[in-house]
């Protein structure tokens, strides 16, 4: 039997989370002929998820259904994954780096006395078959490679959005229904409440105009809003812009806010702090407007304009209004 690469499948609100599908695809690519890819699926109603998982690259599904598993809970899920791991001995377990995944994966690792690498943005095997887990280094524009050389299994949480989804509708596979014993329930679950996410405009926009603490006035923010409108884009900002009440929290870009990938990102009055920039670094083109020519943002931008936004933005608005037919 081939060793297995496992992907924990997170479902929410009756759907599979995108990152789980992405990870199945990446696991399939890494597996080649050497491994089998197994999807670990727990919940209360699993049938709708089987074919999407096979189509995404799973060779096998381990399925365990129980009404108590309708949504994630720390007193049950890690314990079940550990029971399963002890029985089938996977080589690797990948988990999406969502709030849920980042609760589950370290707990599983601690129960199995192994390592868990958090928040990877790349995972692959090197020539010797060692799993390389790449994480951003703290606060600087460097990456670190982390390995788990002597412990079993290797566990990593991987960021959403780094791997493409695969889809092959002709694929099918084996479903293994499990009988596990539910551990004693220690949390009393009340409800799972879905909240409308307002950030979709930001995440889906192909142009994002963002302001920082350098804006500081209603007129300034009105100008940025107009620029965003003329570019058919969305308006976002930094932590200070949220803290000072200029934009809602849902529009914050960065480590603790939204991760965006627009074609064009225009940063205005933003210094370029790493906690902010991790949210925008995947933009195709970055434009920075800042009055301080030493601002770190210029090192991270494609085009920089050194100047006061109060001068530059009106010129941009003018340009767009007069040349509207061109764009």
């Amino acid at each position, binding site marked *: 039997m081939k060793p297995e690469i496992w992907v924990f499948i997170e479902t929410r609100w009756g759907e599979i989370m995108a990152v789980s599908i992405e990870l199945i695809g990446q696991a399939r690519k890494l597996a080649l002929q050497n491994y089998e890819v197994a999807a670990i699926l727990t919940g209360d109603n699993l049938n709708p998820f089987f074919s999407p998982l096979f189509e995404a690259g799973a060779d096998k599904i381990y399925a365990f259904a129980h009404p108590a598993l309708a949504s994630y809970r720390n007193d049950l899920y890690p314990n079940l994954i550990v029971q399963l791991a002890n029985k089938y001995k996977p080589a690797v377990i990948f988990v999406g780096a969502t709030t849920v995944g980042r609760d589950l994966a370290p707990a599983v690792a601690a129960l199995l006395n192994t390592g868990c690498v958090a928040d990877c943005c790349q995972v692959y095997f090197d020539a010797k078959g060692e799993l390389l887990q790449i994480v951003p280094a703290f606060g600087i524009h460097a990456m670190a490679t982390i390995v788990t050389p002597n412990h079993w299994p290797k566990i990593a949480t991987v960021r959403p959005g780094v791997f493409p989804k695969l889809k092959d509708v002709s694929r099918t596979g084996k479903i293994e229904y499990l009988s596990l014993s539910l551990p004693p329930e220690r949390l009393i679950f009340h409800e799972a409440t879905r909240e409308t996410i307002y950030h979709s405009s930001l995440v889906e926009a192909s142009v994002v105009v963002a302001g920082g603490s350098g804006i500081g006035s209603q007129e300034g923010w009105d100008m940025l809003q107009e620029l965003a409108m003329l570019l058919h884009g969305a308006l976002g900002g930094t932590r200070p812009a949220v803290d000072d009440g200029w934009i809602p929290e849902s529009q914050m870009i960065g480590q603790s806010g939204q991760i965006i990938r627009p074609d064009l990102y225009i940063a205005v009055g933003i210094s370029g702090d*790493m906690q902010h920039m991790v949210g925008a670094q995947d933009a195709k083109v970055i434009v920075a407007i800042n009055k301080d020519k030493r601002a770190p943002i210029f090192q991270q931008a494609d085009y920089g304009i050194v100047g006061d936004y109060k001068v530059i933005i009106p010129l941009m608005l003018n340009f767009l209004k007069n040349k509207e037919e061109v764009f």
Partner: protein
Amino acid sequence: MPGLQIAVCVKFVLDPKDVSEESIDSATGIINRAKYKLVINPLDKHALFAARQLQKVAGGVVTAVSMGPPSIAEDLTEILSLGADHAFLLSDSLFAGADTLATSYTLACGIKKFISNFDLILCGAKSLDGSTAQVGPQLAIHLGVPCVTNVSALSWQQNGFFNLRMKLEDGYLSFTVKPPVLFTVNRNLNTPQPPTLMDIVMARSKKVTVISNQDLGLDLNHVGLAGSPTRFKDMFYPPSKRKRELLSGLPEEMVNTLFQELRTKGIFGQ
């Protein structure tokens, strides 16, 4: 009812202002914490504040626990002024280089040994420099208690249960749980207040206890670098894909050049 025995785990981290390429040792990947003035991990202040508020309604004792270099012993008074009644610093060169598994194991052993009958352990949801968000959930495993991470709302009920919410990206889960339990908290939970003059004065009479492995007697295979299953392999700088081009000329000229460049890049789809 003797009130709640609360332990708050506080990590001292590098001030983001001090972060540069020199602050990480590129051979070991270890942050050179000894060289810098460390600060309380911002989310841990939310945890301390939550503990203080719970203590107001439920009574009891708040104990802070931190693992870190001996140099932070004096900084622990800040924790005391933020509401902890007593602080433990777990500090030993044997603990250095710990990953989250070894860190959480060490913290768990310290808590078990020095805080009897704890009801609640509070951690930040994640730390600024490690930012793994793993120590909380792993500590809960070592202590054998259930855990809820990323808590954004929390209250203590007269019937002896906590009501709380775990914040997700697009909603939340709500739970009730009775002690002992561990929560990791996020910034939406509360707005920590700076210490008053009174708090600062009171902090001087509170105690910081420094604990080494002589006091704990932990198996060296479970602490520090030796107890860490994950290993740093190397560090590399992905080539900047940015052009870093500063436009020149009068403001009008810069704006015109910018739009021309964007157009040739096909950003506006024509």
